[in-house]
């Protein structure tokens, strides 16, 4: 198909023909076209179906305000629905399809909805789908879901990459139309660092769409010259294809730059970049958006905003019709006829509402063929240019709840209330509707800002232009309409819906919006809102000022979720932290588990092992029998130094720490200020004023934060300094009866005998002939055990060397599961018990709480309810039938009691199969548990469908007297 509607002139590059496909048909356009202009050039008027009534719709505008021409771009995983054809830059090979129809676009089966329109008016959802109630889930919802929405997602992962970036400037100019260009020129000349952003791919704004002159040259040429000067000045970042979509706190603006959407091949480059722009000042020069008027059947393809008609003719060299009629209520609309005549396009009628002439109806099924005027005349036309006036683009001024005010002269809402701090507005966005005034205002605003910011250069003089006629009248709808007249094309809101909203009492603008959906969806009602408000005001017999307006929030135009996600998707959403022995563990068959951000080995599968239990049982048994090695680097490590370190620890741990000798480790229990247990770990005193604290893996960051709080905010003059060394040291537990023998081969010249290095001893030492190390004799498993730490860079060598040294003892590596088995057997509490809801008494650690000092949480731990004798206490559990596998989360009941919460006796927190005892064992909280050892209770888990009898025992299933760890 040739470009039948292409005319002379415009800013397209006729040397660069581009082929694109529309609904599977190949067409051509030129570099510089949008998809919309190329479709119009090829005579395509029908491009989509409306949301609710499936009415034929065409291209209505020439910019991001487009309500109708929503299309799907690309194929496969890259498919993108609901894209405005008016903002899509044409490229070679672009594939686009229409959406929201069943069957071909011209014969949409869903068009029957249009015949049902009497039943589909505002609020029909709320009224229709109320009854019968049972129908909602089975009938209505699937029906609504099937017909809802416009385009269709690909349902595949987005194949494109998105980036985030940060920019800083003195002045952010939003919009590169005449006001924005004038402002950027002046600010740049004074020496400010300027960012000038515009959503279009060519700077100039309306200058490119109109026939105005600036400084004696065509407006578009002046704009190109201005852009060239800005680029040459060196202190301006001119960002085209960049939409500033939100004004956030403290001069921060969000902007979306479309980097490769206009390229046939993006290569490896990110498709879009989400910029966070830090600006000292912002100047909103976002222009204005034209709106329609309400008249019969005003939504047909071929009915287009007058400014868009001029844009297609002047900028893109496309005739939107061969025989165009104009319907306007303002002088600006009248220029459409002049421009078109100048291009040799026939103008069949100029209908000026201010003279009492109106269009009452339009004719033409899939595109306009004629209009009917108020006096009954019929005028043939294939394009109706409509101008109902221009609405300043005040959106960003509302982002801090500024409320626009009505300006009767402009016939539109202009910025009002409190603007975001640091923002000012110039040009049409400010209600300054003529060219010369706009340029002067942009220039003046920039001069003021430059002076405020102390820029010294000369801003020069503003470009010269004329002020065009712009008188406008508040004419909204044709009186006595008998045909449906649309207010919001995207949501299919008609004048009748607005009247109905008023009749049914939804009269505030906020109610109107929500009841009719006026102003919602991708275009946010940019061509519709003011008309809707005006009609509501008319219906209520009030002024528009009294009726007021809804306000806008970010984003100004839609932003893809992918852009917000940026690179943080998939594995990069939350990168893993790897332990120093990770590579070694991978080589040795480890299965990994996520522990916070860490990946930890959970078990090491050996040949012949059928399931995880085989591996875990073997690892746990071998620790108790000989020796095992486990990477415990993930535990938080905090280096504490300073003269007051002991005093500091004594205030953050609930148990005593003042008198911990050098060379000793102590178990420490931390409370929250409300007296509930928070975290536990061991702290070693390496020197008089040097301690190393460990925390649980999960709380490493939080404990450090809290310690800094205590240090800086509570006791600012204690001499204590903290540093997190979690990643600085690779630490391994070496546990089992042969651990001493193994470590004797590893540690340089340190007497490890029980007398010289007893339980809870610690020392700084070296291993393998000089590698610095720290040795702690602590035990989580209950066995004779140590933890040995080396600087993290030696971690990989250390695990290999330890395993080699352990060969003589058949040492095994063990993972987090065996670690869990060993600690449950031993009755050590962990995260399953220290849940943020448990007290020291519950954990059986009540005796640790010091009564002779003040420490975080001690005072409130004294509260009566937390110390009741009939409270929950930690106990051990074993199934009466030793073959039963216990279930964590089961609740305890006295045998014979009904299973209800009133008779609840507690709950099982941790279970494991104990290879040592040959049965499943558990830990849990049982009411008065400590006194009930030997009793039998029910462990009842309706979730797992388990109801078994368990014997209450000591939580220390293995070695209750602690002989082994002290041996």
């Amino acid at each position, binding site marked *: 198909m040739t470009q039948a509607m292409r005319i002379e002139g415009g800013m397209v590059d006729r040397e660069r023909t581009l082929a694109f496909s529309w609904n599977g048909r190949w067409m051509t356009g030129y570099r510089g076209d949008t998809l919309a202009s190329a479709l119009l050039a090829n005579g395509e008027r029908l491009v989509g179906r409306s949301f609710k009534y499936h009415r034929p719709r065409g291209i209505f505008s020439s910019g991001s305000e487009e309500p109708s021409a929503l299309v799907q771009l690309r194929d496969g995983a890259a498919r993108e629905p609901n894209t405005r054809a008016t903002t899509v830059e044409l490229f070679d090979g672009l594939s686009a399809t229409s959406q929201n129809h069943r069957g071909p676009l011209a014969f949409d089966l869903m068009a029957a909805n249009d015949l049902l329109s009497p039943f589909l008016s505002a609020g029909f959802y709320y009224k229709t789908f109320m009854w019968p109630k049972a129908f909602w889930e089975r009938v209505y919802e699937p029906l609504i879901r099937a017909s809802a929405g416009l385009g269709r997602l690909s349902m595949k992962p987005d194949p494109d990459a998105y980036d985030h970036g940060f920019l800083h400037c003195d002045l952010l100019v939003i919009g590169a139309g005449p006001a924005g260009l004038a402002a950027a020129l002046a600010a740049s000349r004074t020496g400010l660092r300027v960012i000038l952003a515009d959503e279009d791919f060519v700077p100039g704004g309306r200058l490119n769409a109109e026939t105005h002159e600036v400084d004696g040259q065509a407006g578009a040429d002046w704009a190109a010259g201005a852009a060239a000067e800005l680029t040459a000045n060196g202190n301006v970042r001119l960002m085209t294809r960049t939409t500033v979509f939100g004004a*956030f*706190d*403290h*001069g*921060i603006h969000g902007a979306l730059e479309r980097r490769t959407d206009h390229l046939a091949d993006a290569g490896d480059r990110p498709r879009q970049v989400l910029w966070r722009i*830090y600006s000292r000042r912002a100047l909103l020069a976002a222009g204005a958006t034209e709106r329609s008027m309400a008249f019969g059947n005003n939504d047909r393809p071929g009915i287009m905003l007058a400014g868009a008609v001029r844009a297609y003719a002047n900028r893109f060299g496309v005739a939107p019709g061969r025989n165009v009629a104009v319907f306007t209520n303002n002088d600006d609309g009248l220029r459409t006829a002049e421009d078109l005549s100048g291009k040799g396009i026939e103008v069949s009628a100029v209908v000026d509402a201010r003279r009492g002439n109106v269009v009452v109806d339009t004719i033409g099924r899939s595109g306009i063929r004629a209009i009917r005027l108020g006096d009954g005349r019929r005028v043939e036309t294939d394009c109706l240019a409509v101008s109902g006036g221009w609405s300043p683009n005040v959106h960003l001024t509302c982002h*801090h709840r500024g409320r626009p005010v009505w300006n009767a002269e402009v016939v539109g809402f202009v910025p009002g209330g409190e603007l975001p*701090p640091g923002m000012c507005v110039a040009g049409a966005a400010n209600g300054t509707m003529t060219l010369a005034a706009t340029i002067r205002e942009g220039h003046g605003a920039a001069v003021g800002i430059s002076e405020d910011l102390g820029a010294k250069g000369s801003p020069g003089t503003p470009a010269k232009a004329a002020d065009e006629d712009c008188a406008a009248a508040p004419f909204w709808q044709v009186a006595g309409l008998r045909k449906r007249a649309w207010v919001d094309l995207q949501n299919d809101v008609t004048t009748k819906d607005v009247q109905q909203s008023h009749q049914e009492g939804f009269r505030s603008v906020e109610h109107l919006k929500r009841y009719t959906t006026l102003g919602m969806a991708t275009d946010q009602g940019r061509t519709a809102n003011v008309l809707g408000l005006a009609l509501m005001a008319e219906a209520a017999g009030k002024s528009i000022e009294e009726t007021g307006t809804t306000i806008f929030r970010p984003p100004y135009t839609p932003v893809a979720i992918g852009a917000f996600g940026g690179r943080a998707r998939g594995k990069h959403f939350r990168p893993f932290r790897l332990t120093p022995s990770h590579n070694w563990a991978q080589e040795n068959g480890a299965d990994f588990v996520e522990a916070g951000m860490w990946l930890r080995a959970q078990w090491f599968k050996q040949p012949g092992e059928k399931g995880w239990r085989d591996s875990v049982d073997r690892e746990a048994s071998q620790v108790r029998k000989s020796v095992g090695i486990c990477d415990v680097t993930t535990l938080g490590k905090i280096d504490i130094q300073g003269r*007051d370190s002991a005093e500091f620890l004594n205030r953050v741990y609930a148990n005593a720490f003042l008198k911990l000798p050098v060379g000793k480790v102590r178990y420490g229990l931390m409370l929250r*200020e*409300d007296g509930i247990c928070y975290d536990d770990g061991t702290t070693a005193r390496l020197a008089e004023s040097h301690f190393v604290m460990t925390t649980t893996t999960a709380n490493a*960051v939080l404990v450090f*934060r809290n310690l*800094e*709080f205590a240090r*800086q*905010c*509570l*006791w*600012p*003059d*204690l001499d204590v300094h903290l540093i997190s060394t979690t990643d600085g040291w690779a630490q391994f537990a070496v546990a089992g009866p042969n651990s001493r023998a193994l470590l004797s081969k590893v540690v340089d010249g340190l007497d490890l005998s029980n007398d010289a290095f007893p339980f809870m001893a610690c020392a700084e030492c070296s291993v393998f002939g000089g590698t610095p190390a720290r040795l702690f004799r602590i035990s989580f498993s209950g066995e004779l055990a140590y933890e040995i730490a080396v600087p993290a860079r030696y971690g990989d060598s250390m695990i290999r060397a330890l395993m080699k040294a352990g060969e003589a003892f058949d040492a095994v590596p063990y993972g987090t599961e065996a670690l869990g088995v060993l600690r449950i057997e031993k009755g050590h509490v962990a995260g399953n018990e220290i849940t943020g809801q448990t007290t020291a008494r519950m954990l059986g650690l009540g005796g640790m709480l010091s009564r002779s*000092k*003040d*420490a975080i949480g*001690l*005072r*409130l731990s*004294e*509260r009566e309810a937390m110390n009741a004798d009939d409270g929950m206490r930690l106990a051990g559990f074993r199934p009466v039938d030793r073959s039963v596998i216990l279930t964590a989360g089961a609740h305890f009941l006295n045998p014979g009691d009904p299973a209800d919460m009133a008779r609840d006796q507690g709950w099982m927190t941790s279970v494991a199969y104990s290879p040592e005892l040959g049965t499943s064992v558990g830990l849990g909280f049982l009411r008065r548990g400590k006194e009930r050892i030997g009793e039998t209770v029910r462990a009842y888990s309706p979730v797992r469908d388990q109801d078994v009898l368990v014997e209450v025992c000591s939580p220390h299933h293995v070695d209750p007297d602690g002989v082994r760890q002290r041996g």
Partner: protein
Amino acid sequence: MIINHPLLGPRDSAEFVVLGDACLIDRPDGMNAAIEEMHDYAYIRDNPAGEHRELWYHEQGDRSWLVVTRSTLTHEVIEVELARNVARARGRSR
């Protein structure tokens, strides 16, 4: 949001963690405080619409705790102080 760190200059709020009311600095002495006093310290907070003094922690930065005086209505940051200095000024020492 931008917080003007007294040592490091303006920093993005993404670098910080907020804790809440700066009254947490005024921790009673647990050995002498009435339990009610301790209870109020642990649980009772004002929730003003307007100026609020808050504790912010520069976790992705220099680990300073800051007292940020901020309007909860406009997000305007009115004053930023080192919490350590505030604590000292409120009589806290060792």
